[in-house]
């Protein structure tokens, strides 16, 4: 039985709506509970799910629509009541906070000296708001995704013309003047400036710099498309120039997917011209040579180490897997436990592990290979749970661990799974306890393996610092108590996983 409830002209932010959807979905007997704004895409989604098109077609993108499906009207009534409570709670909290200023103009009246706009509105409105912010003379960080590449180029050209920094679109991570914006970790200030086209890549590098006792001057996000041929690295080049002139920055680190040659050449040229050394890591490339003042790093950890070294620090070489640990972990595995399951919340973490293991000759299926046909027989798999196929209508797995928990619960029933490889990303923006949220599923999967006469190694790295509100030490300890092998970086975790499965295959 279906029910559609409409509230005209009720705009609420998507994260709040997703949390309500989740609450409704958890109710007994509710088969489906979606609370969304009636954007064309959402209307299509609901029509596709079989909800009444004629009702949906008449709605505007500012209307709230609740789609409920349950076996009977009693459950639907209960869900509708619950919905009213959830929405009312929000209304009460807003009432006690008093009226808020409206829009960018209202914000500027409330905070006249504002110099940066952080924009996380739905993608179709992000270019409009970013334009207004640029016209008001502000720097801009566009967290929103789903902004067209044409809009991205036009915005970035305008920003360059105005001498303003435009981070994004789809920029998740930045640290500007010591202030964490979006998904970022608490690190001390220091001599290393980071320019990252990838959010989790930037998080991993800044956290490893912090662990080595050094700090970050600025961490600038560019958005994933900045180094594409079309966009031509407009923000990356602007950021390199800023950091080159910034007296507090001694070393520049650039992290990106491997760009097209002409774009790479431009970026490298800018770095070579900067009066300070730089480190470049192209995710997926294992280049480790140096040219002019530029040092290539083959992985995120190496990039952090090299930057620390160039800033005058010393860092021990990266740890190789401890043979005793590998032996201990593989000892009780059953012979049929052959395959890796890499379940990642950070796209760059997944890409790093994938590149490393493929370079070692592994055949791996991954949703990072968009468009590749799925194989019928399952082998090694690396899954980016932050990919659109998992996030449509629900929050990113760094915020909402449920999709990864569900995936691991399913994998627990597969006797061929040999090693589970995880990333755990702490910091602002992330879930309040990403490690703890995984532990019941980890314990269940390990128990199921034991019941089948095997043993399931779970290898993880934690991207975070002790300054993060979730706590690096606390998160690590909780994972270790659950039997997880926690190592110092994402690349180290991939190495341990490789060692265990290769030894198992040979042994």
């Amino acid at each position: 039985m279906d029910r559609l409830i409409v509230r005209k002209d009720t705009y609420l932010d998507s994260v709040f709506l997703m949390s309500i959807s989740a609450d409704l979905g958890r109710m007994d007997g509710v088969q489906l509970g979606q609370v969304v704004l009636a954007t064309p895409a959402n209307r299509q989604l609901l029509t596709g799910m079989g909800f009444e098109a004629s009702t949906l077609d008449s709605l505007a993108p500012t209307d709230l629509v609740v789609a409920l499906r349950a076996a009977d009207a009693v459950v639907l009534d209960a869900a509708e009541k619950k919905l009213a409570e959830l929405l009312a709670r929000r209304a009460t909290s807003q009432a006690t906070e008093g009226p808020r200023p409206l829009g960018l103009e209202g914000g500027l009246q409330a905070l006249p000296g504002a110099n940066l706009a952080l924009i996380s509105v739905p993608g179709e409105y992000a270019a409009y708001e970013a334009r207004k912010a640029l016209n008001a003379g502000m720097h801009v960080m566009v967290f929103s995704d789903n902004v067209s590449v044409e809009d991205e180029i036009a915005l970035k050209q305008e920003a360059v013309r105005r001498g303003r920094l435009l981070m994004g679109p789809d920029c998740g991570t930045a640290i500007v003047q010591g202030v964490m914006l979006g998904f970022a970790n608490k690190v001390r200030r220091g001599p290393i400036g980071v320019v990252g086209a990838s959010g989790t890549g930037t998080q991993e590098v800044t956290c490893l710099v912090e662990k080595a006792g050094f700090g970050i001057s600025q961490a600038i996000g560019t958005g994933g498309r900045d180094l594409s041929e079309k966009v031509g690295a407009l923000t990356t080049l602007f950021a390199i120039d800023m950091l080159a002139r910034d007296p507090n920055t001694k070393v520049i680190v650039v992290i990106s997917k491997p760009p097209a040659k002409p774009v790479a050449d431009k970026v490298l040229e800018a770095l070579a011209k900067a009066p300070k050394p730089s480190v470049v890591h192209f995710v997926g490339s294992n280049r480790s040579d140096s040219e002019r003042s530029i040092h290539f790093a083959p992985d995120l950890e190496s990039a952090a180490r090299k930057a620390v070294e160039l800033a005058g620090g010393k860092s021990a070489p990266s740890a190789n897997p401890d043979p005793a640990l590998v032996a201990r972990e593989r000892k009780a595995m059953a012979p049929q436990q052959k395959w890796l399951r890499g379940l990642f919340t950070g796209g760059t973490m997944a890409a790093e592990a994938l590149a490393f293991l493929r370079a070692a000759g592994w055949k791996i299926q991954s949703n990072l290979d968009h468009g590749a046909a799925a194989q019928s027989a399952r082998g090694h798999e690396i899954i980016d749970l932050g990919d659109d196929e998992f996030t449509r209508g629900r929050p990113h797995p760094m915020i909402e661990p449920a999709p990864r928990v569900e995936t691991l619960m399913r994998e627990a029933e597969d006797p061929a799974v040999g090693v589970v490889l995880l990333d755990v990303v702490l910091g602002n923006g992330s879930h309040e306890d990403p490690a703890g949220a995984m532990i019941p599923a980890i314990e269940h999967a390990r128990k199921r393996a034991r019941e089948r006469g095997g043993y399931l190694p779970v290898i993880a790295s934690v991207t975070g610092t002790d300054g993060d509100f979730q706590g690096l030490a606390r998160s690590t300890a909780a994972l270790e108590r659950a039997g997880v092998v926690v190592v110092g970086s994402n690349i180290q975790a991939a190495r341990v996983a490789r060692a265990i499965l290769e030894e198992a295959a040979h042994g």
Partner: protein
Amino acid sequence: MADLFPSELAVINLGLPAFGQDIARQGAAVSSPEWRPPAGGDPATVAALTRMLAWPEAKRQRVAEANREAGKRLVAAQPVAVAVGRALDLVPGMTRKHVLHAGPPLTWERMCGPVRGAVIGGLLFEGLAKTREEAEKLAASGEITFDPCHHHQAVGPMAGIVTASMPVWEIENRAFGNKAYCTLNEGLGKVLRYGAFSQEVIDRLAWMRDELGPALQAAMKSHGPLDMRTLIAQALQMGDEGHNRNRAATSLVIRALGPHLVESDLPKAVVAKVLRFIDGNDHFFLNLSMPSSKAATDAIADIPWSTLIATQARNGTDFGIRLAGLPGRWFTGPATMVDGLYLPGFKAEDAAPDIGDSVITETAGIGGFAMAAAPAIVRFVGGSASDALRFTQQMYEITETENSAYAIPALDFRGTPTGIDVRKVVEKGILPVVNTGIAHKEPGIGMVGAGLVKPPVSAYRNALQAFVETYADK
């Protein structure tokens, strides 16, 4: 360098509230304003607004300057009533085969009940048809030219029908020299403008043509030009808003013209009948406030680069607007049902969709925009006196300027919000407040209520999109 990395970061967080809380926890300055999708979230309109924001500074300045100029002209307007005469003699382009109607262009086939009824009445009145059937046949034959009043420097309330021998007011905008025309108000009940065409309606029109028109013409000749700006300004301080409440202004007209009527050569009985007729119709002045507003807004009918609205009008089928920067182009949406209260014995099902040129008053900065001056009528639209203040105050959000000639006592004599900017309307999602009467959907029954219009937002969005497209490459 200080410019690129500001010494202290101060952030405006638009979107997810959690990001703002995170920044505040770090001790940095942050404001997290409430955010709603611009333009009601309509993708094509947001794209147009975004394009406009991306225009070079010089180009955006041209728009601002054009709007300033248009606003100035509206405020500078000096509408003066100069004469009463026959439509055929005064209204430009008028012929015996013309029937003018309210709103944007409309064919006989698409006319709603009240407009059809009024057309029939007009043809009967002109003697072009003898019966309803004959009139309908003639109307459908193509022999009659249907034209919007607005295409002939005229305006008409409700159905807005103007035919050749009807008497009309002539208003001159002394600041710019342009003229505007409007018929004389027939009163309430069974009247042509609500679609009635019974013998009593035709007889009254004949009396207006034969006695009322000439009497007013004589009085005007004797009195000389009647300054509408001063009269409207006074009326606003006496509880009128110039659209739905015209009681004060009507009284002021009697005061001005009464002695001249009495002194004229007209028979005493005619003078008495004329004065009683005006006194019996609180809306007599509407047909002066409308052409006064038309004379003011026509001065901005063609101002390149301006996004101000020069015309709003409806015909019971379509609601249409024209922009100062896009002369000659109508942007329409479906006429909507009026949100209001009904006279005893009538209900919402009886109502015709929104109709009439009277929304020209709001376009010029009075009517609904001056609601704060007329708390007495808010009850008609189901509100309280504080709503009246709120309506006017909200209109400052979508207007270019204020008209200090029209001062509102309750707002400390602040001028009425004047010059509707289509861009602000669309961007902020605030539609103009429009007061109106409600016509019965069947011809000939008349007024059944009054209330507030909900203009179709599509007309405003389409106009803005067309503006951006037109000026994109200029």
